[in-house]
């Protein structure tokens, strides 16, 4: 099992500081989601992790020591912009990439056959990549990243361009790899997907890490909110101390807690005034947390 870690990773292009002192940890056995808007620095960070770009400052660690080219050779990497040799046959090409990853030729051949079988592409083994449908090309790309039993996975937008069935298949593959003890870092724009899949999350904005942690802890650290629904008008909540009334509409209101304990005051008051239909803690969705931290 291994762990990817970056410390103070920075990179400037011209006068744009694309990545600015990024510290992140990708732990083994779980999926780490990497989110942020366009130009937040996700791709640059991943390229530096993979050694494709050289950082201006900071370092990348593997199991606590500086990551070497030999470590990275065993990783599975899917760059943001996909591509394979268009004119080479699927099996030949995958075999070549597996060998570049350090597999002996015979073992590579076996691994190619197994993976093509698993992704139901066995019948296309002898086809040129350019003759495949886009979906199948994407699958070949995924196989290229998984083929050599990588010791870590770094995937830039692995879900982009996939149809819903392929998204599920990809998610299964990633969970499966993570369960086998491989650290998995992947970036995505699709927050709902990240929320559903990830064990932990790193949010990047303007080259900096603005939030980090498990999905639960991030959401729990968001503002404490309660929804109140009663039979009568709830305009009175505006006057309760320690409460900020967000959204009051007839019998319902969304309240944000300023002083702990104030929610109990509201509840007692509401019960006294009439029937209470609903009083619940509202955990904000990840998208809301994301908007807040990246604002």
């Amino acid at each position: 099992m291994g762990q990817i870690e970056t410390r103070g990773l920075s990179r400037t292009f011209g006068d744009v500081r694309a990545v600015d002192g990024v510290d992140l940890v990708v732990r083994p056995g779980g999926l780490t989601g990497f989110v942020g808007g366009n130009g937040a620095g996700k791709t640059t960070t991943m390229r530096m992790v993979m050694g494709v770009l050289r950082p201006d400052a900071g370092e990348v660690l593997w199991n606590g020591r500086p990551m070497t080219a030999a470590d990275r050779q065993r990783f599975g990497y899917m760059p943001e912009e996909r591509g394979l040799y268009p004119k080479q046959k699927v099996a030949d090409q995958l075999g070549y990439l597996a060998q570049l990853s350090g597999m002996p030729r015979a073992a590579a051949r076996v691994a190619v056959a197994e993976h093509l079988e698993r992704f139901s592409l066995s019948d296309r083994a002898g086809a040129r990549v350019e003759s495949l449908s886009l979906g199948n090309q994407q699958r070949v790309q995924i196989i290229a990243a998984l083929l050599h039993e990588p010791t870590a996975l770094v995937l830039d937008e692995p879900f982009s361009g996939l149809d819903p069935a392929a998204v599920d298949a990809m998610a299964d593959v990633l969970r499966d790899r993570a369960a086998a003890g491989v650290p998995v870092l992947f970036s995505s724009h699709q927050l709902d997907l990240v929320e559903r899949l990830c064990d932990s999350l790193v949010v990047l904005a303007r080259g900096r890490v603005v939030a980090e942690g498990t999905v639960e802890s991030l959401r729990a650290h968001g503002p404490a909110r309660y929804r109140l629904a009663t039979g009568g008008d709830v305009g009175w909540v505006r006057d309760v101390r320690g409460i900020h009334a967000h959204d009051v509409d007839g019998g319902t209101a969304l309240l944000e807690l300023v002083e702990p304990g104030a929610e109990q005051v509201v509840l007692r008051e509401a019960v006294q005034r009439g029937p209470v239909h609903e009083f619940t803690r509202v955990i904000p969705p990840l998208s809301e947390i994301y908007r807040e931290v990246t604002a």
Partner: protein
Amino acid sequence: MSTTTEQHQDQDSRERDRREEPPTDDTLRHPWALVARRELATKLVDRTFLVGTLLTMAMIVAFVVVQAVLSDRVKDYDVAATPAAATVADAVAQRAPSLDDGVRVSVSPVTDDAAADAALRDDKADAWLTQRDGNWVLIGRDEVPSDLEAVTATVVRDTTLAQNASAAGTSVAAITSGSELKTDVLVGNAEQRNFAQGMAFALAFLFYLSSIIFGMTLAGSVVEEKQSRIVEIIATKIQVRQLLAGKVLGNTALAVGQMALYAALGLIGLSFTSFGGFLPSVSGALGWFLVFFLVGFLLIACLWAVAGALASRTEDLQSTSTPITMLLLAIFFGSAFLDGTAQTIVSYLPPASALLMPQRILEGTAQWWEPFVALAILLAAAAAVILAAERLYRRSLLQTSGRLSMRQAWATPE
């Protein structure tokens, strides 16, 4: 704490496992060999490449066959002769068919030497048979055809012997004296030098063609990797230096292999023609040519790789490779038109020396030590270009937005 220890043990055991894998494949330690093998494998099954190679081989065979047919043809020669030489000239004309079935001789009577000279210069006669200082001389305009020379020599010797014998009281030595035939040409070009020059031109053409075709292939495969973005995956697996080395060596092997194939085919073919006799004299020069081509192509291949890396799409290749195509064209024309001191100087100048020095060896104008010096300079230049190309290649390979200039690529941070 305990998890960290476990992780370390885990890692140790896996590393042990990896070490225990039998070292079945050398390519694991030499990734460039893997890259070179892919370059060879994809090319050797490429239909365009195979058809092109077969077509060129067919052209070489056709050329040789045409040469052979031409040399089998009966040739008619007009020999100019003044009245003084008429008897011998008539004897040549009479006996020629029986001496060489490819030769027919007819005599053009001329009044004097001046008329004979004029007939020869105006191309009205192929040769002029005359006697100078007691020796028979067969004079050609720019060359004396070897078959006519052989026929005439025999006739002259026999005739002279007969004449000498008829003058009584002389010894055999006296009879044979003066019967030797010497040849001379008016404009100084011997057949062998023609052959060497023709050969040099053919080699220059092969060099040019091969450098362009394989160079384009190499640049195309570099830009294909950039354009398809697969290079970003490869760059995480092996050093970019290894990728460059594999591609350059793979294509150099293909180019030199193809060149050797063509040269061998051409030589075997030539040995069946009337030029066959010259082959032993040029085999040393051909060996030099292959050595120089190998080193020169290595240098040029690096330039092509850089041209490929500077482009982002196949369409950019046209402009990024223009300097190299110009350079190759200059070398080609230089080899065809330079002579004297200019040729000597350029034959030391890399990468032109890769072509011009073997040419000078072929033409016999190079001292024995000259190719060694030129080769040393070429090797040094190749090493320098390889180092510079590696830097340019590494820095431009991941720049996928538009075309890069050489200067931009040099200054780009990694």
